[in-house]
């Protein structure tokens, strides 16, 4: 596929993709159980709860307990999805995830909505920009950050088939739907456009911004390779190295702190293999604040224009 094949078919929040995915799982997999800490509506669990009330656990506002219960549910063959906002699903319960889930090798799926700046007006208390870093540091933890409704739905279904702990990160805002309705393959990067001048590695909501940027840059005559890194861990190292071997420079775009996220991982990978100029489109070691998602993307430098500028800058650094 190439840029022109990614046609926008509608607009929906990625969390609704999760809601649709878990509803489908409810029908197809009797072991799937959902847990939530008083945010069922925000996590789009209403349909699942209505259809499968016996497989839903309302834990109340007690996230540590939720993670532990999820770990216990795996003993006996259940596939629990522990759900809440990304901040409360990671930072608040890091030690519970570390000991009861990751170290104990439990088949728990942590499904986290409202990640990043784009939850908007609730502000920095809720806008976690460190969650990818926290989760990917845990041995054995799979970290997935899908980019639109279709990919989030497909990822939700895929992680239930995978045996092992997973952190599935998605968001609140209504966002363009542009990915095909296709099977999600954990750990397999998607080359959305082939090019030879520069590679843009993008994850989550920034895939859309990068798609817009790539279209603009191609219109200006550049040849841009765009790669959708939906799985941050395990990283598709082969795809990344193959692309940079060709383009000799890259931009990483993510709705996360520039420290500890996808950018750090790709920088480390390149440094260990084929060093190349790299620029980040990410939050510059900062907390967020209250505003609309669009205003925040602009203020914190996560917009289409920022991707365009980063591409030009990194190309200028090529030898």
């Amino acid at each position, binding site marked *: 596929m190439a840029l022109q094949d990614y046609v926008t078919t509608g607009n929906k929040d990625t969390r609704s993709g999760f809601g649709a995915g878990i509803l489908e799982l409810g029908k197809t997999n009797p072991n799937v159980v959902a847990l939530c800490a008083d945010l069922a509506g925000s996590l789009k669990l209403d349909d699942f709860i209505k259809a499968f009330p016996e497989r839903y656990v309302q834990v109340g506002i007690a996230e540590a307990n939720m993670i*532990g219960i999820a770990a*216990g549910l795996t003993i006996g063959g259940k596939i629990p999805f522990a759900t809440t906002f990304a901040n409360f699903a990671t930072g608040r319960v890091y030690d519970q995830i570390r000991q009861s889930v990751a170290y104990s090798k439990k088949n728990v799926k942590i499904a986290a909505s409202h990640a990043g700046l784009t939850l908007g007006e609730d502000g920095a208390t809720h806008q976690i920009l460190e969650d990818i870093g926290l989760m990917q540091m845990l041995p054995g933890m799979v970290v997935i950050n899908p980019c639109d409704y279709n990919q989030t739905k497909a990822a939700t279904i895929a992680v239930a088939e995978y045996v092992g702990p997973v952190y599935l990160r998605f968001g609140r805002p209504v966002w363009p739907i542009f990915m095909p309705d296709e099977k999600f393959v954990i750990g397999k990067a998607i080359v959305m456009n082939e090019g030879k001048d520069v590679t843009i590695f993008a994850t989550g909501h920034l895939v859309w911004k990068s798609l817009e940027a790539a279209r603009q840059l191609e219109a200006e005559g550049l040849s841009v390779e765009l790669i959708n890194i939906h799985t941050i861990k395990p990283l598709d190292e082969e795809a990344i190295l193959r692309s940079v071997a060709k383009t000799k420079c890259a931009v990483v775009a993510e709705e996360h702190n520039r420290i500890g996220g996808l950018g750090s991982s790709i920088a480390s990978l390149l440094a260990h293999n084929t060093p190349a100029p790299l620029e980040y489109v990410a939050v510059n070691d900062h907390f967020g604040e209250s505003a609309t998602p669009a205003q925040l993307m602009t203020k914190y430098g996560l917009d289409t224009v920022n991707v365009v500028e980063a591409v030009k800058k990194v190309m200028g650094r090529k030898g």
Partner: protein
Amino acid sequence: MASVEELKNIASQVRRDIVRMVNAVNSGHPGGSLGCTDFMVALYFNQMNHNKNFTMDGLGEDLFFLSNGHICPVWYSVLAHAGYFEPSELATFRKLNSRVQGHPATAEHLPGIRSAAGSLGQGLSVAIGAALAKKLNKEDKSIVYTLHGDGEFQEGQIWEALMFAPHHKVDNLIATIDYNNKQIDGDVDQVLSHRDLKAKLHEFGWDVIEVLDGNNMEAITAALADAKSRTGKGVPVFIMMHTVMGKGVDFMENEHKWHGTAPNAEQTAAALAQLPETLGDYKAG
């Protein structure tokens, strides 16, 4: 089912194992281990319906979760004597490349262990999850047991779980607290008191049994049988088990310093002299 005499014999050997294990590596937690020995022996040799041919899911059998993971020496010894692995493996406790880790772990696949513990406060939640899984697996009527420290009960997550279990009618669960009134920095009453724990548990909706002498084998077996008879009635069951930290070794009894101090060679000899070797000592590593 073992007789009380047999249980006491096993307990004596388990206590010997505990002392020898922590002495051998000059680290570990003898105090709580010795205090909970009678409970653990009664649980595994008299009460639980369990299978030494270990499976992680434990379908159709009773499960046990140790939440105060630091007292794992007692658990390891009990598991070994119950046939989960050879007692000789106890000699690898806390050593490089061992399955017998400093705190319980699943990563090395030691049979009998279903969750890591060590960071306090997490086991009740995990046990609740396992109990809910049994309910979802409709034919599984077995029981989930946990053990906690009383210092551990200062952790907030415990209270989240205490609130959850009665609300959700998790009645296939028996939680026990090692009520020794000791923790690292001193008496629980002094460090941070639970005040009237029994009243709190009642108020939270638990069915509470109090065992005044949790180091008396008759009392503990009776309490465990009583607790079992109270399961399946819509409420979770709680055992407030008064014990003596360091029980069985006179100079360790009721001394919080023995929470996590290993006896030296001389102290070990003095301790072992008080504990008859009943089943044979495991071979030192």
